[in-house]
């Protein structure tokens, strides 16, 4: 039978405190398991109280923990902290437990999957800068992934934080800046292609610009045609446009 008792905070073992995001409901007592010491398994935020009502339940620690904190309800880093409390965190991801709590909380809020956080392993000296900027700029989950990957590559190329920090308050701008820094050759070649296309005399009502999608650069041509005659004119005039092969092979 579960027993409800009162303890002072220091009489309880808080080793399983994995800092869950959700606060334990105030109407419920702290839950604990007695496996030699009285281990709290839910209601961790109440450790600051002097006296605490504790319901000691039967069952082994892991089973009770898993029953109270369903994996599907936890965010990625929360899962990692949870598994770590039970001694099951994979070695390869333990470094994530050293991220500043504010950063952990931000990444969980955006639900960034753990595998996308692997680049952080190489960014430890920049943790504080990254935390500050991510919290301020509030990038989306996919932007966070992109930013971390780019920052990791740049750090491994011995770039400094001063070179990598954002210049504006828009996360999309930061992604673009880092992409350019990470890929100087492509950036130069795309710029040349774009400038070349601007120098071409395109027929009236035709707009052309250089676009990149992944590994392929291409010309996006837009034409406004409102009658068959204009279409004929478009076909004739577009044939006269000269675009060098080198545009694609810079």
């Amino acid at each position, binding site marked *: 039978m579960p027993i409800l008792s009162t303890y002072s905070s220091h009489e309880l073992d808080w080793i399983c405190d994995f800092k869950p995001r959700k606060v334990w409901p105030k109407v419920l007592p702290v839950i604990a398991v007695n496996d030699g010491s009285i281990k709290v398994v839910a209601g961790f935020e109440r450790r600051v109280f002097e006296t605490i009502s504790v319901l000691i339940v039967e069952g082994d620690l892991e089973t009770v923990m898993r029953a109270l904190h369903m994996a599907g309800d936890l965010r990625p880093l929360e899962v990692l902290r949870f598994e770590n409390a039970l001694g099951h965190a994979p070695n390869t991801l333990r470094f994530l437990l050293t991220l500043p709590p504010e950063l952990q909380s931000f990444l969980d809020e955006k639900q960034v999957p753990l*595998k996308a956080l692997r680049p952080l392993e190489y960014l430890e000296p920049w943790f504080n800068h990254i935390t500050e900027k991510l919290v301020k700029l509030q990038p989306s989950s996919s932007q966070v992934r992109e930013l971390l990957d780019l920052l990791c590559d740049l750090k491994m190329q011995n770039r400094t934080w001063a070179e990598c920090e954002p210049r504006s308050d828009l996360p999309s701008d930061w992604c673009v800046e880092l992409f350019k820094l990470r890929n100087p*050759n*492509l950036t130069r070649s795309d710029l040349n292609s774009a400038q070349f296309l601007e120098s071409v005399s395109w027929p009236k009502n035709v707009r052309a610009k250089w676009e990149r999608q*992944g590994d392929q650069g291409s010309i996006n041509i837009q034409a406004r045609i409102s009658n068959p005659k204009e279409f004929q004119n478009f076909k004739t005039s577009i044939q006269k446009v000269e675009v060098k092969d080198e545009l*694609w*092979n*810079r």
Partner: protein
Amino acid sequence: MEPLIWPLPKLDELYIHNDVWDSEVAIRVRSLNLAEAVKVAERPYKNQEGQLSGREFTHSKKRLYLAKHEGHFFRKCPGTQGAACCNYFVLNLGVQCNMNCSYCYLQSYINSPLSQIYTNIDDALSELDEISLRYPTSPFRVGTGETIDSLTFDDLTLYSAKLVEWFRGHPKLTCEFKTKSCNIKNFINLKHSGNVVVSFSVNPHKIVETEEHETASLSRRLRAAQESRDHGFPVAFHIDPMIYTEDWKKNYFDLVNEITSLFKSNEVRWISLGALRYPPSMKNILRERFGGSTSSLAGELFLSDDGKLRYDLGLRTKMFNFVMGEFKKRDPKYPVFLCMEAPESWLGSFETTPRNVENISNLFKPLAAPV
């Protein structure tokens, strides 16, 4: 001239399944004293659910497990989504490699914490017998170097000799040994039907030194290719993956020079070109194992339609055109083709698709139906 010595693999752990303890391969491996052989009733390490860490992957190269392969050996090359298919079939006689190339795709593919050699090659050959009966008119090309290098473990298995012998009786089919080693000694003096192609995956000296760790030097690979040719074996080259560096043109110019100075166009069965590519998920393991200095990681790669990271298509086309041009300048008959590239790349480099390119079109013809 230095002899073509190929070192035995260095092992920390060796496991042999009960059922194959007395198999030909196991007896041979035990006699080589590479590590203390442990007899096991089941696979000693389970496959991981996700990708191995860099450390686990490196460790898996030092643990060898000998066991039977239970499934099918022979299957169509998975190729890559959207790429032109060259009708290649693979016969996997093991998994993992004791060499250590920075760009190796096995890093994204293997989730086994140990290397494995399948001891039941006779079952593989029976499977080939059956297939050759079902498809009597299909000139299959069968490669043994997809999930394992064809020759690096040959001193442990002597499979090259068995395969040469089997293919001697099946002259319509072609076998390809694909390697970065120079380990040709176990089959080079055998009688053969000229249908075992010894192919070497090559790159310029600089790339071999910086990216293809623990492989045979380029000079040794080329010497092994010369010896293979001199013994009547057709030879082929895979310049794949081409790796971009600031001085890539000079590097690949020198490589083409070396190959063409040693081999006439009619002495080479094919030369395939491909550029660096890998799935994005491989970046983590690359970072862990090779750091930021490897050209495989430092290069500018972007997501392509098939989900792999590749160089910009314009740069790839330029690199392919350059190498192809250098071969063709020396002799237009060098049979060069692109591997795992989409039709866009073919059109960029050949101005047509592979089935219309002279010298290599037969590699890309659809195969006949089974009887």
